[in-house]
């Protein structure tokens, strides 16, 4: 099975709007999913500038799917969905 790739946006907008708290995912994801899921930090994903959507930041991408106003819980939920759990 392909690895799931989680990209946590560390661009300024996402970081300021709450993305700083998502760094926890770096610990949680490997612990929970082992090597089935890979988590990386990313520069601005470009989502904040589409119609200047800062109010929906922070953004996280799980493969191609975007999680807006992302929280640790929301991201884990999305991963579970992807894994078909």
């Amino acid at each position: 099975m392909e690895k799931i790739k989680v990209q946590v946006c560390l661009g300024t907008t996402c970081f300021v709007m709450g993305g700083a708290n998502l760094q926890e995912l770096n610990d949680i994801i490997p612990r929970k999913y082992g090597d089935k899921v890979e988590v990386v930090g990313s520069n601005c994903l470009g989502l904040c500038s589409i119609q200047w959507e800062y109010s929906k930041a922070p953004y996280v991408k799980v493969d191609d799917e975007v999680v807006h106003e992302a929280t640790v819980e929301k991201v884990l939920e999305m991963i579970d969905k992807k894994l078909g759990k």
Partner: protein
Amino acid sequence: MNNAGQAIHLKKEILVRIIKAFFSDNFEENTRLIPYAMRPKGMEVPYRCCVYKERAIIKDRAIAGLGFPIEEDDETVSLGTYAEKAIKRDELDGRNLTVLQAACKGCSTNRIYVTDLCQGCVARPCQSTCKFGAISIIDGRSVIDDSKCKKCKMCVNACPYNAIVKITVPCEEACPVGAIKKDETGFASINHEECINCGRCISACPFGAVHEKSQIIDILKAMISKKKVIAMIAPSIAGQFPGDIYKLKSAIIKAGFDDVYEVAQGADITANNEAKEFMERMAKVNEKNSEWLSEWANAGGYGESEETKDEEKIQNFMTTSCCAGYNQLVKKHLQEIKPYVSDTGTPLYYTAEIVKKAEPDAITVFISPCVAKRAEGFDNKNVDYVMNYEELGALFVAKKIEILECDGEKYVVEASKQARCFGYSGGVADSVKASLQDESVIKPCIINGLNKDNIKQLKKFAKTGECEGGCNLIEVMCCEGGCIGGNATMNNQKTAKKLIDNLANNSKDIPKI
């Protein structure tokens, strides 16, 4: 998002919108529209009962963002009018905190409460243990008479079913000096005479009800005036944004400032001066000790029972003086420790002095992790405004500035390794130590976050002239973790500290005195 997360997100979004409105063609009107833009007609209501209530609360939060006290709003004044008033204002008042009382409603008052777990047992240990006769049995269940209850928690501990609980109010619990209280009407209010501006209540309230009164409009106004506006960044900022402090400098300039100084530059002076002062004070202690010894010997070594008067008391320790929250605590609640507090200026004090000397006409803005520094800034004529990290972040967002894409720029004066660590617990004591030739003379005692207990301890130290364990330098930081735990910080402490250490490890050592 949990409640607090939502509230913080909301506060920042409102700030971004205020800043955007400021730079738009119609500040007043676009400010007035903020609640409607955020909660348009027909929108599903995320948190509260209806869209109208949500808008009302957004309006209240925006009032604080514009720099006015929410408590004084009489609801008839529109946000547009507040915006206009903010533009016209040329003075700040010294009160920095304001409570959005409408948000308090969700939180029940501080009391002892018998839950449904009460089994109505025959032994009734709760009733017999209560010294105030506050518990009676009604319909076979214990009931507390709130007018008699003294909240001593004896019954809570006595109940074998754990059926009795203490309901706490987070802001009241968090305040180390009892300055915020929820009254009978259910609203929290701040006693500004008692408040030390530590910002604990801001972080503690799950509804985000406590706000800092922002000076953002005043700062933006300064930026579009002809004057130079100079940012002075607190050391703890190194752990708070993506990228390093060099990229951050470029980003801050892009955001509208003319220049950026590290307050760590002033921290070097603070540490050096504090080290000198420490040595002088300790020399005095030795002198007094030997004086006292010889007197005692002359008197035959007996009959020395009279209590030493305050002026004569030997001061065996010194406390640091750079934390604004602690300084306010001393001023308002702990006068007795004043003689022990170092007379050395804070890093901000020296930095602002340097900046104003170099640029007498410039407007200075301190960029701060906490609300306490607003009070310090207000009292210091060299500091014109204070802006916190969240507000700086909002400014970046509003102006679409991507820090990681900025070039990066050196500082004219680069601070030392030790000074750059002033922002976390232990950092100040370490810097003072590192300033001395013989570091071993300092025995530090670290107060990492003020609370009711260690305030009592400090009182005791002041009374006896002696610190626990023979320590002679007490570093006091009001927030747990130090400035990286300040109410307006954005990063978690572990990462923040790591980032600061990365920077520090590439910096030179502090000069010795």
